[in-house]
C-alpha cells in the first residue's frame, strides 16, 4: 500500500508527510506529525475540538483529508503562541479560567482567533454564534465568552 506524498506548510514550517488516502488531516496531525493539540471529540464536524485554520479559513480537521493539505497553509494551536509569549487569547483563557478540563480549549482558541480576525470588536452575540461550532461541556461558556471579550479588547489596544 503506497502512501500519498504531501508537501504543506504548518505553523510556518514546511512539512512533508506520507498518508493513506482515507486519512484525515486530523489523523495526520495527530498520528504522523505528533501535533496532538487538535483533538478528536467526534470525528464528524460536530464538536470543533479539531479546529485548525487552512488558508485562512477555520475548518474541522476531521473533515479534511490529509491529502488535501498539499500546498496549503495550515495553522494549529501549536503555532498560536510566539515563542514563550502566549497569544492574548491564550493568556485571557487562563486568566478567566475559561477552561476546566481543557480538551475543547485548542479548538476554541482557533475559533476565537478566526472570529477576532474577522470582527475586531464583536458583540456578545457575535462571539456566541462565532463559537457555536465548538462544544464545551464543562464551563457553560460564560467564562469563555468573557475571555474572548477581554482578549479582543487587549488586541484592539495593541
Amino acid at each position: 500500500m503506497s502512501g500519498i506524498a504531501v508537501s504543506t506548510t504548518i505553523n510556518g514550517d514546511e512539512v512533508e508527510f506520507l498518508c493513506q488516502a482515507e486519512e484525515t488531516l486530523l489523523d495526520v496531525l495527530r498520528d504522523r506529525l505528533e501535533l496532538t493539540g487538535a483533538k478528536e471529540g467526534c470525528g464528524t464536524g460536530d464538536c470543533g475540538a479539531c479546529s485548525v485554520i487552512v488558508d485562512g479559513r477555520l475548518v474541522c480537521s476531521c473533515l479534511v483529508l490529509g491529502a488535501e493539505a498539499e500546498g496549503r497553509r495550515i495553522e494549529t494551536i501549536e503555532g498560536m503562541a510566539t515563542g514563550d509569549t502566549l497569544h492574548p487569547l491564550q493568556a485571557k483563557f487562563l486568566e478567566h479560567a475559561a477552561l476546566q478540563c481543557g480538551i475543547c480549549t485548542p479548538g476554541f482558541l482557533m475559533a476565537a482567533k478566526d472570529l477576532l480576525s474577522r470582527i475586531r470588536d464583536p458583540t456578545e452575540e457575535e462571539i456566541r454564534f462565532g463559537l457555536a461550532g465548538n462544544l464545551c461541556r464543562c464551563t457553560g461558556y460564560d467564562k469563555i465568552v468573557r475571555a474572548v471579550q477581554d482578549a479582543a479588547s487587549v488586541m484592539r489596544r495593541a
Partner: protein
Amino acid sequence: MTVATYSARDFKSVGTRPLRPDGVEKVTGRARYGADFNMPGQLVGRILRSPHAHARIRRIDTSRAEALRGVKAVITAADLPDLTGGDAGLHDVLDNCMARAEALYDGHAVAAVAAVDARTAREALKLIEVDYEVMPHVTDVDEAIKLESHVVRQPAPHSGVDPELDFSANLVKTTQYGHGDVEAGFKRADVIVEHTFKTEQTHQGYIEPHACVANFNSDGTGDLWVCTQGHFAYRHFCARLLGMQVSKLRVTSSEIGGGFGGKTHVWAEPVALALSRKAGRPVKLVMSREEVFRASGPTSATSIDVKIGATKDGIITAASATLRYTCGPYPGGWAEFGAQTAFACYNLENVRTVGYDVLVNRPKSAAYRAPSAPMAAFAVESAIDELAHRIGIDALDFRIRNAAREGTRSSYGPTYGPIGIGPTLEAVRNHPHMKAPLGKNQGRGMACGFWFNFGGQTCTDLNIGADGTVTLSVGTVDVGGSRASLSLVAAEELGIPYEQVKTVVADTATLGYNDTTEGSRGTFSSSMATIFAARNAINVLRERAAKTWNISIEEVIWEEGHARATGAGHGNLSLSLKEIAEAAPNTGGPVAGHSEIVADGAGVSFATHICDVEVDPETGATRVLRYTVIQDAGKAVHPTYVEGQFQGGAAQGIGWALNEEYVYGKDGRLQNAGFLDYRIPVCSDLPMIDTQILEIPNPNHPYGVRGVGETSIVPPLAAVANAVSNAVGVRLTHIPMSPPRILAALDAQKAG
C-alpha cells in the same frame, strides 16, 4: 474515619484566584489527554459491537479476521475468562466489557481486534462473523416494569423486591426512605398535588471519548495510560478481571477531557489489556463518539410519581414519591439516590419515598453528576411550584416556610448540621434577578437542589525541595482545576506563596490508594489530606529548626512560612522554609509530610437556581434569557473554579431540560449516537450564567470546605420546567421539554 474540625481563620491563599498550574500546557495544546500518548510498537484496538438490543450469541467465528495480514489479536469473551469468583457485581462489569452469552443492548461489545493500523483493524472487524439469535427487548422504564414485560436477564438478579408486587422481574431493587405517617399527613392537607413525571436518558457528554494505551508484559506486569476519574479504581477492576496482582498494574491517569461520572467505570480498558496480553504488544484503544453514546454509561431514564399535601397556610403535611429508574441490563442503585435526595431540601414531618431499579435493554447506567438527584428534584420541585400556586402562596415563600434547617431530620435519615438551603432561598429573595421585569411569552422559575457530597479514602505526599519549593502529590484526578485549589491549600497551611507549590496527580505506583474523583470529593478530601500532610511536614520543619538551634521542638512554632523560636532567651530566631530545606541534607535528610485518611464529614450541599425563559408559542422553542445559581460552597478555595462548577452544572442541566435525550427506535437501536442529534447546548444557546457563592462552613473540614461540583446540576431541570410552565401556562411533566413536546402540550391545552 477522619473527622476534622472547622476553625475560623483569616485566609491568605485560600479564596484567591491564581492561574492554574496546568494552564499553559492546556492553552498551547501540549497537555496530554487519553488519546495523546503512544508506546513503541503499539497496535490499534477496535471493538465489534452488537447491532441488536437483545440477542443470544450462538457462535462467533474470528478465523477470517485472524487470517488478515496485520491483525495481531482477536478476542471474544473467551479471552476474558470469568475470574470473578462469585462476585455478581464484578461479573456484571466483566459482562458489560465483553458480552458473554447474550448481547444486552445496542452497542454491547462482542469481540475486539488489535491490528497494525486503523484501516486493518476496521477491515478485521468486518471479517468477524457473529451468529445472533435476536430476542425481544424493552427500553422504556414504564414498559419494562410491567408484569407482562419481556425480561432483560433471566433469571433476573433481585434485591429487596417485594414478590407480592405486580411487577416484572426487571424490577431488581427496591429501596425505601422516610419517616412519620404519610397517610395521616395527607389527611391533614388542605391541598394535595399529585403528578407523574418522566425524564429521558441523557449522557454526560464529555468531549473526550474514552481512550487508553494498555501494555501487558509477559511477566505479568502491565501499564495502563487512561483518561479516568479514578485510576486506582480502574487498576482494581482491570487487575481483578485480568487476574493480575494489583500492584503489578501501574495505571497513569492522563489529563482528562471531562468525565462528570462517566469515567468512574471501566469500559474498554480491560479489553485493551486483554488484547495486549494476547498480541504481546501495547494496544491503543480509543472509542469513537458513536461508541461513547452507545456503549458507555448514560444516566437513568425515569418515571416518577410525586404526591405532596399542604395546609392552606403553606405547611407541607406529607410528601411521597415513587421513583422508577432504568439501570441498563445490570442492577444498580440509581433509584436509591433518587429516593434519598427527592425531598432532602425540606423539613417534613411525614415523608416516604420508594425507589425501583428497573432493567432495560440500554447501556449500563452510570453516574452523572449528582447521579439520580436531578430527575427527583425535577419531579418534586415541579410539584412544589404547583402546590404553592394552588394554595395561592408565592413559590419562594412556600419553599422558605418548609425549608430544612439545622436540626431537621432529613428525608433520608440523618439529622442536618448547619446547612445552606435557607440561606440560598434568602439570597434568592434579595437577588435583583427576582425583580427583573418579564415580557410577553416569558416566564420565571426557580428550584432547589441537594447533594450529599462524598469523602472517602485519600492520601497525599508533600515533598519539600532543596530550594524550598513544594511538590504536592495527590491521587484524586483533577477534573476541573483541583490542582490549583490543592496548591492553594498547601500554600495556606505552610504559609508560603502559591507559586512555590506544584501539585501533581500521582500514578497508582507512586502514591497510596485514593478513591475516585466523584461525589464532589476531590477538593474536599484531598484538601483535608493535604492539610494533614502539610501539618506533618511542618512538624518535621520545626524539628529541624529546633535541632539547628539546639532547643526543644516545643519551643518552635510555625508561622508565615517560618520556624520561630518562642520563649525568653531565644531572641528573634527564625528560619524560613527555604533555609530549612537547604540545610536538610545536614539536619536529617529530605523534608516531607504524608497523610493517609478516610475523609469523613463531607458537608451536604444545597443550591437554589433562578431561570427566565421565553417560549415561542408557535414553535415550542425555548430560549433561556437569564440564569442565576446560588449555592453553598462551605469555603470556596478557588472562587473562579467554584463559579465554573456552578455554571457548568447549570449548563448541563439546561441541556437536559430542553433538548438532550437518547432516542431509541422500535428496533431498540439508538437513533442519535452523535453530537449532531444528541444536542448539548452550544455557546449561542445560553446566556451568561450568574453565580453567587455562599459560604456556610462545613463543621467537619479544617477550612470549612464542602464539595461543590455536583449540586449545580440538580435544580436546573425543575428551574427550567417551572419557568417554561409559567411562561406558557401549562405544567410540563416530560423532560426534555423539546419543541415538539411543548407544542403538543400547548395544543392539548387548547383542545381542553
